[in-house]
């Protein structure tokens, strides 16, 4: 006998000034079912107007980030247990476009602000025909931060982001550390200038909720603390950073 399960969705269309309301759906429960499976079932069989993002279905793309039972999670990685009631909401620190779809423009702009790429100024490196390969030993200085999939869960969980809209957020700051810790990067001055402010790394109060919710095991709060140390050292020793701490 198929057991039914109820799932509560917070639905809204801000563009049409509609008030967010919870809508309850009943779905047939199967063992191993994820919240994303349930949403797809609702979209295909119950209500075609239900709106949400998804892509890879295996926690690699970061498209299906949403608040599930009060915690920001990836819907494709969250199993529906037999007992729990399920309440699904869109991410909270980003403007909602419709239902569970949020506008990531602000998030992306903050990410773009920290120059998330390796800057090469050396003419020899610029003319390299082959790849600019990183040494295995040095890779471990920032490897975990390179695993970020930009799902926005940390940004949603951060208490500072919710009160200060100008704060860069844990994702952008941990990515800033990722590029600053990379010894192939040659323009540290400009990036440090951007993050050395109250809306940059000094805005973090180390609540660590970003690290709690990261689906890829990245520790953005560690990245921000290391970033603070790096910025402080760069001020003390001049802008040249001699070494990065080994993780």
């Amino acid at each position, binding site marked *: 006998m198929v057991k039914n399960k109820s799932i509560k969705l917070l639905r809204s269309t801000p563009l049409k000034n509609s008030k967010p309301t919870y809508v309850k759906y009943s779905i047939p429960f199967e063992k191993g079912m994820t919240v994303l499976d349930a949403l797809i079932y609702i979209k295909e069989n119950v209500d075609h107007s239900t709106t949400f993002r998804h892509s890879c279905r295996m926690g690699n793309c970061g498209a299906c980030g949403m608040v599930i039972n009060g915690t920001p999670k990836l819907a494709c990685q969250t199993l529906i247990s037999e007992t729990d009631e399920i309440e699904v909401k869109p991410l909270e620190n980003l403007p909602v476009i419709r239902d569970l779809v949020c506008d990531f423009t602000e998030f992306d702009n903050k990410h773009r602000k920290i120059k998330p790429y390796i800057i090469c100024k050396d003419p020899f490196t610029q003319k390299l025909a082959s790849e600019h390969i990183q040494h295995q030993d040095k890779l471990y200085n920032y490897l975990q931060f390179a695993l970020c999939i930009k799902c926005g869960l940390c940004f949603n969980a951060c208490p500072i982001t919710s009160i200060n*809209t100008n704060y860069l957020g844990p994702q952008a700051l941990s990515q800033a550390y990722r590029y600053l810790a990379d010894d192939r990067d040659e323009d540290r001055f400009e990036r440090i200038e951007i993050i050395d402010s109250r809306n940059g790394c000094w805005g973090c109060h180390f609540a660590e909720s970003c690290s709690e919710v990261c689906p890829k095991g990245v520790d953005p709060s560690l990245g921000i603390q290391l970033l603070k140390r790096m910025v*402080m050292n760069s001020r003390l020793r001049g802008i040249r950073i001699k070494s990065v701490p080994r993780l």
Partner: protein
Amino acid sequence: MKESSIMLLHYTTGILIAVLGGVHLATHSFLGVTGYFDSLNYGSVTGRYNDSLFSIVLELLLINVTYHGLNGFRIILIEVWNNNKWTRIVNWSTLSLGVIVIIYGTIIVLGKYFLI
């Protein structure tokens, strides 16, 4: 002033407050007194406050506590509303308040050396 320099001073003053506060309390409790009641009698208190080394420690403590406390307060206020105008108002207000507190405190602590 860059935020990292402000925070560097914030951490340094925090450590100095612990050190100077310890020296301050130790001076009260152990320097030239036989016990708790002796440390609080009129002669001991005036003797301590007329000592130049004690006054210097007190002055340093005043500067460190004022900077550390007001900077902490500034950070809280900046986070209440986040806009450039408010940040500028808070920065200048705390700076002015800090200068006033330090000048007033210095007159009380070191005034006897410079004023008649």
